[in-house]
């Protein structure tokens, strides 16, 4: 076992070395910690799957427990944003790449990331329908209302009015980017898909310090 871990350590160090050159925001040590953490998380999974990476359920569990996310649909979308090769598993590279933006991304990176999360069908535009879908549960429904969806529809129109600069009835990346630059609150306009400062701090503290101690 110790032999294994020694070998593992070597591999991890090499991987960290490589990644820290490719991926921004983390130094080598931090990268190593993240890889370790990834391996730790994988350990619980059955061997067969482990080869591929974190599966959807596992990943969502992390989002929920560590970053306090609750919206199922958004969590799926975050998984999707991490899972760049679309194989339904987040591998170690996708994990560190994803976390780089997730934890320490610049505004530009975050805009890109959020847009990817919100562009449900990946056609490069956030359509009315997509917005509606994402905001579906964002309002408390009043039983008295004739059309319970009216509020949501209205909200979608408000968002469009605010962000659809080219007036084509949908948000292109340019629209979205421009709107967020004008008002950065709009970054997560259609769902919370980034962790708040508190959970980032908690996560980093745990990942970087606890891992080092081990």
């Amino acid at each position, binding site marked *: 076992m110790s032999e294994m871990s020694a070998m593992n350590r070597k591999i991890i160090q090499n991987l960290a070395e490589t990644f820290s050159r490719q991926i921004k925001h983390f130094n080598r040590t931090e990268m190593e910690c993240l890889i370790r953490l990834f391996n730790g998380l994988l350990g619980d999974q059955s061997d067969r799957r482990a080869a591929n990476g974190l599966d959807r359920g596992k990943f969502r569990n992390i989002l929920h427990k560590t970053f306090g996310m609750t919206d199922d649909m958004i969590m799926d979308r975050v998984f999707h944003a991490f899972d760049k090769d679309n194989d339904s598993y987040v591998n170690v590279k996708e994990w560190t790449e994803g976390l780089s933006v997730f934890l320490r991304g610049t505004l530009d990176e975050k805009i890109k990331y959020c847009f990817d999360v919100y562009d449900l069908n990946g056609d490069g535009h956030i359509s009315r329908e997509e917005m509606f879908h994402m*905001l579906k549960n964002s309002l408390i429904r*009043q039983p008295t209302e004739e059309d319970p969806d009216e509020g949501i529809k209205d909200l979608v129109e408000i968002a469009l*009015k605010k962000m659809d600069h080219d007036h084509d009835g949908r948000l292109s990346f340019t629209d979205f980017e421009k709107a967020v630059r004008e008002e950065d609150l709009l970054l997560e306009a259609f769902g919370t898909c980034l962790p*708040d*400062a508190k959970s980032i701090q908690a996560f980093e503290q745990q990942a970087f310090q606890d891992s080092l101690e081990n």
Partner: protein
Amino acid sequence: MGVALSRAAQWTTASSGAGKLEVTPLNESLLKEILRFVEQFSSKYPQEASILFMEPLQWETSLQPSDFKNEYDISGVTVKSQETGRDGQPLLQLSSSTISVSSFSQLSKIVQLAKNKKLKEVRACLEANRDPIVKILGPSFATVEGEDMSVLRLLEKVSEDNVSKETEVKMKLLLLLQQLDTLLLSNSLKQITQEVRLSPATVKNDVELLKGFCGEGEKRVLKSVEYTSDFEFSNGCRTPPWRQVHGEICYLIIETCDTDPLYITCSTAGVFLNGGIKQEGDDKAYERKSDVYKDLVTLLKNKSPHFTKNIDKQDFTVNEEPLLTQKMEHVESVDAEEQGQTQRSYELEEKNVLEKARQQRVRNKPGGSKKSEPSLKWKNLGLTSPYEEAGGKKSTKHGVNSKFVDGQDRPVRSGSKKRANFSLSSLAGRLSSQKAKSAGGGTGTVDFSESSSESEEDEEQPERRPESNTDLPSEYWQIQKLVKYLKGGNQPATVIALCSMRDFNLAQETCQLAIRDVGGLEVLINLLDTEEVKCKIGSLKILKEISRNSQIRRAIADLGGLQTMVKILDSRDKELKCLAAETIANVAKFRRGRRTVRQYGGIKRLVELLDCVPDSAALTEEQERDVEVARCGALALWSCSKSTRNKEAIRRAGGIPLLARLLKSPHENMLIPVVGTLQECASEGSYRIAIQTEGMIEDLVKNLSCDNQELQMHCASAIFKCAEDRTTRDLVRQFGGLKPLVALLKETENKQLLAATTGAIWKCSVSMENVVKFQEYKALETLVALLTHQPEEVLVNVVGALGECAQKPANRAVIRKWGGVEPLVGLLTGTNRALLVNVTRAVGACATEPENMAIIDQLDGVRLLWSLLKNPNPDVQASAAWAICPCIENAKDAGEMVRSFVGGLELIVNLLKSADGEVLASVCAAIANIAKDEENLAVITDHGVVPMLAKLTNTTDDRLRRHLAEAVARCCMWGSNKALFQLSKDPDNCITMHEHGVVTLLLAMMGSTDEVLQEAAAGCVANIRRLAMANEKARFG
């Protein structure tokens, strides 16, 4: 009879049971008809009359047993008819007051017996038996609305029963009753159609017609016909809305030729005399004082014989009848339909008003009516056209409550508080029609009920909303909707709503108040208590903007927003801290707000925000954010520093060194709040010392030369306050601050800056070294130019500075040369206390120069100064008295001049009674000067100056003693004044006089040619001498 009774008769209550028949003409005619029917029944139809009723008709009768004659068995209170039915029951039975009758024959008899109580009996009978046919013929004949099957049913019976005799008779009876019913109905219809329903249009017509009869001369029918109100509602009424609901159309004052003026109310029910409504009558005036007449002409015919006589002689006929009926058709049909329902409710009235409004519009002649507006609030009741299309009672109701016709006034506060508040929005005027349209369209339906305690009306008719919305600025509805999303949305929804709300023009009061009025402030402040940083930021971004409005500030404070924002100052998020501090800076602009900030520990936290490195060359991003936080903190402290206690709290929280450090910042946006805070706090001595000792004067001076006027102003203002201290004045000079101050005098357009600059110059000029510098920079020339056309706060400082500079003789000449004396004298007529104190000082300083004095004299300046002695303020009195001294010294013929002031000498002598030390000293000095003139000395002696001076001699104020002694010495010049001699008998006085160098004066006096004075002076000296001897004896003996 059944139908007529249930439909046409006017019952007092709609419910069945023991209803009462109203006493109305209609009912009366119905009853009479029925009575006639009953009376004649037994003689006309004897067979039918004997038919036994299925059930007896029972009612409370007023007949007494004694009323019954033969054919009846009377025993005590019971009466039984001898005629009995088949079962042996008497057909009529009376026990106590209840009577029961079982046949028409008996009914006929009762009617005959009752004589003049006939009608009463019929009424009682009908009231007790709402549907008599049921009792007479059986329940199957009950009067049913709609198709009446009773005849058919009877026919069936007839065929079944082998045509028994009885059924046949019954059938006849029924037919008879139905005949009666038809008769009654047709009669009542006639009656109803006779009833008058007036409309605004007909009334207006009548009035126009009657006005035609007015005029001068023999032929006139009336003197005048006037409305009480010129304002005509769009529905044609001229009565206030709360009277319109009573159906009142207008009030008239008609002067006839032969009666007192008639005060007339025209209502839909007719016209009648009222209690004398002139303009806005009291409630009693609305009461009806006469019968109701169907129209004005009828009323006048009844009231004025002259009118009756002459009206028919008119060339044309008053043909109001056809017009009236034609116009009334519609209303009438409505009324007739409602008549039976007996419910004369508010809604019905509303409806009528609407109908009238419609007629009115049809008939409206362009330019025909004068529309002045006595009170805009009436208009807001808006009985106007959009409602007609909507029709129906609901919309009318709604319209009355919430529609505002005009965007310029408040609505009547009939609705909830919230609704009333909407009016404020309308101040901002209408929106573009496009916007209004969108409000009225898809987005217009908003949940009104949740934010309002308003009655069911609102819930009832959301569908009406869009129509009424169009008259409110669409912002209200949009903001209300957004607030709803804020309330019930998760973070993304809230963020979208917040961002959208920020797109409104939040600097505009309409929007600010709209947010408040729809309950937005509560929600925004609640958001601050959540954990969602984004929501907090979004909310603060809005609060920061709208808190520029003072009403909003108060509302935020009332809702506990300050406490929450103070807590946010502890947040780790710097953007959040900044926004909270900036919002506090706005909200803390009123006293209670500032106090709240302090009480919740806000000052300490705000001071902590100041801690940053402001001036290092290369700042990291993080440090830059810290600087921004510090800036916002300084902004908030600036607002807070207007309260004395907060100044103290800032100092105790260690704010002064932090402010001193920030003062080194190169950025104006940082410096302005910092210097603003400092100059605000400089009213406190502790701060002035700190500003001096912490080396802040240098920075303040440095920033005098920046190119931001606001900053310059605050710096100058801080120097103004701090330069009370000599060291500070020297520091300002040493750091080269005087030159930029003089340079700032050129900024004559910015009055605030000018006031601060001149203030700083004034205070600095107290040091003569500084005055020399000012001379060098030619400040005086500029200052003199500022003596005219400046606001008082500038003038006070300019004059103060001139007064200080003029202490140097060279400057007095400069002031004269540049024409400063004239405006200075002119300012003596002012009322501003601070200004007068400074002006008198400046004039006094100038007066020490004879050439200046000549100008002052010429402008009658001494008289002006003298009259200022009458000013109630002791500072002004003293300053004026001081100024008078050099004037008397330097004026030509000063004695003559002083004498010429009527009552002037008495005035100044009386000031010796003042309690103010400075006044006494200055007046003594003035008296010393006045006393130089012998005649004046005589006058003031007559006014009792000597005993008054004597009274003052026990003072311990050295300044007063000096001038007192001088005055005393001068007064001694007057031959008979042995005052000094007398005074000198008191050892204390001797000491005093001695101390103040009286001896020298006295010695000079002894050398005078006046023997008496010699004597007095010598005596005085002798006394002093004796005292000195005694002293020495005591000391050495």
